[in-house]
């Protein structure tokens, strides 16, 4: 009994002394944005930077498809302008709460942020995943771009031996599909290892005439199935998916089935490589 009493007495004194907070990770003044493509996952579009309106603060994106942005403890809203590769821009206006708290004589104060609210934005769709930033920062807001999986990737190869191929540069003057506008390559921009070509969602095949200049013209005919999806219909309308891609027998770009390889039979956004060909 005496031992238990002494143990209780000493333990209570020891525990009651442990009231000094540490000064580690006090603030949660940074929130995270994750950029995604509706229905496809991470958006690998290159975000160059974000600037905060009314300040000279420029934040560079260090992680693909994500960025961490600071919150001003003296404000209740901030306007962020995003600059993407190709100089396209978008913006986000964010509201939030900020409370100061005295932590200790040694640590000073901290700011506790919360109540993240999207006031207005220029993205296709946005959702607040978590209203309270954390330290270290994590994803608080997910930004969605409407998917446009209407491009398929074509890579040109040359045969090294019977089993191995490698990328090769091909001179192309133009590619003319049987729908829409032709793709014209000019001046120095005429040699390619890879091209991304649009598919025609109106019908189940697309035909492309490759003009290799002195090497002549060849035809590639792709056949496929289409499927319509309604992801965030209010923002994106109808999204057409392309699947079961295959090379039609009417193709003259290659002479033999051994001269092409279907890598992926469905398109994606961002576009991926679907077909490798060894042009004749």
């Amino acid at each position, binding site marked *: 009994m005496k031992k*238990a009493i002494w143990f209780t007495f000493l333990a209570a004194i020891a525990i009651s002394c442990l009231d000094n907070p540490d000064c580690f990770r006090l603030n949660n003044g940074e929130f995270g944005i994750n950029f995604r493509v509706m229905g496809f996952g991470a958006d690998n579009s290159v975000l160059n930077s974000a600037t905060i309106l009314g300040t000279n*603060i420029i934040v560079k994106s260090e992680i693909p498809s994500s960025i961490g942005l600071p919150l001003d403890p*003296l404000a209740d809203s901030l306007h962020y302008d995003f600059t993407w590769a190709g100089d396209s821009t978008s913006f986000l206006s964010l509201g939030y709460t900020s409370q100061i708290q005295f932590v200790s004589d040694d640590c000073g104060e901290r700011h506790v942020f919360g109540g993240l609210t999207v006031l207005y934005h220029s993205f296709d769709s946005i959702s607040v995943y978590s209203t309270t930033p954390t330290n270290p920062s994590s994803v608080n807001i997910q930004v969605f771009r409407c998917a446009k999986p209407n491009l398929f990737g074509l890579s040109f190869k040359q045969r090294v031996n019977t089993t191995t191929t490698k990328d090769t540069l091909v001179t192309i003057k133009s590619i003319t599909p049987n729908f829409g506008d032709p793709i014209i390559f000019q001046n120095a921009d005429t040699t390619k290892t890879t091209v991304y070509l649009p598919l025609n969602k109106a019908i189940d095949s697309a035909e492309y005439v490759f003009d290799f200049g002195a090497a002549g013209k060849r035809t590639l005919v792709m056949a496929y199935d289409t499927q319509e999806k309604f992801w965030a219909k209010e923002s994106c309308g109808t999204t057409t998916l392309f699947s079961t891609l295959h090379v039609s027998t009417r193709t003259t770009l290659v002479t033999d089935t051994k001269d092409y390889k279907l890598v992926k039979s469905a398109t994606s956004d961002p576009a991926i490589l679907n077909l490798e060909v060894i042009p004749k």
Partner: protein
Amino acid sequence: MKLSHTIALLLILSLPALGQEKEKSDTAKVKVKPDFRPTGVRIGTDAIALVKSHYDKTFNGWEFNGDVDFHRYYLAVDYGHWARTYLSDGDSSNYANTGNYFRAGVDVNFLKNDPERNMFFVGFRYGVSRFSEQYSVIVADTLWGTYSGTYNNTNVNAHWLELTTGLRVKIWKMIWMGYTARFKFGLSTGSTPVMLPHDVPGYGLAEKDSYWGFNYQIFIRIPFRKLPTVSSEK
């Protein structure tokens, strides 16, 4: 520490007392008549708060404690005051709070057969506090620049729960001493949109979900009537 762990700890700590009662009952069965009429009131103060107020320049406080017995159950109340003041060396910031608090609850005495009614108890409290605090600061932020401000929380209400355990021992005639260990949890404070509370009088650091407190108390017991006799049972 998780709440469940703490409850388990308090129960484990109370086992020796329960075990002692079992042993006694095996050797000489003793029975206290279940007389629930109160026999006296005990009024005391927390010595730690008084000593801390004297030696700790940042703290000033006091606490009064009282309980009334109803057989082995005690209605316990505490009323106290504390104020804290922190001044930085360079006067770039200072924090001050002041407030009063009140706790009420029940203790259960596990020393059932003690003729003096000494106590080894486990109990609970419901605590309420009303306090004000002020914080003045000059902040040099590497990103947002230097700024200063004075922030106030005035007449903020807070409440919380406590699990308690401890001792009450008769020292001499009307003089009693004891200690109370408190596990505080479930703190809820009123709306403070600009500044989060730092220190809640009676509870402690507001940022902590649970908190330990400790009192070393000196009491005077004023009897209403004689203690019921403890009779042996054959």
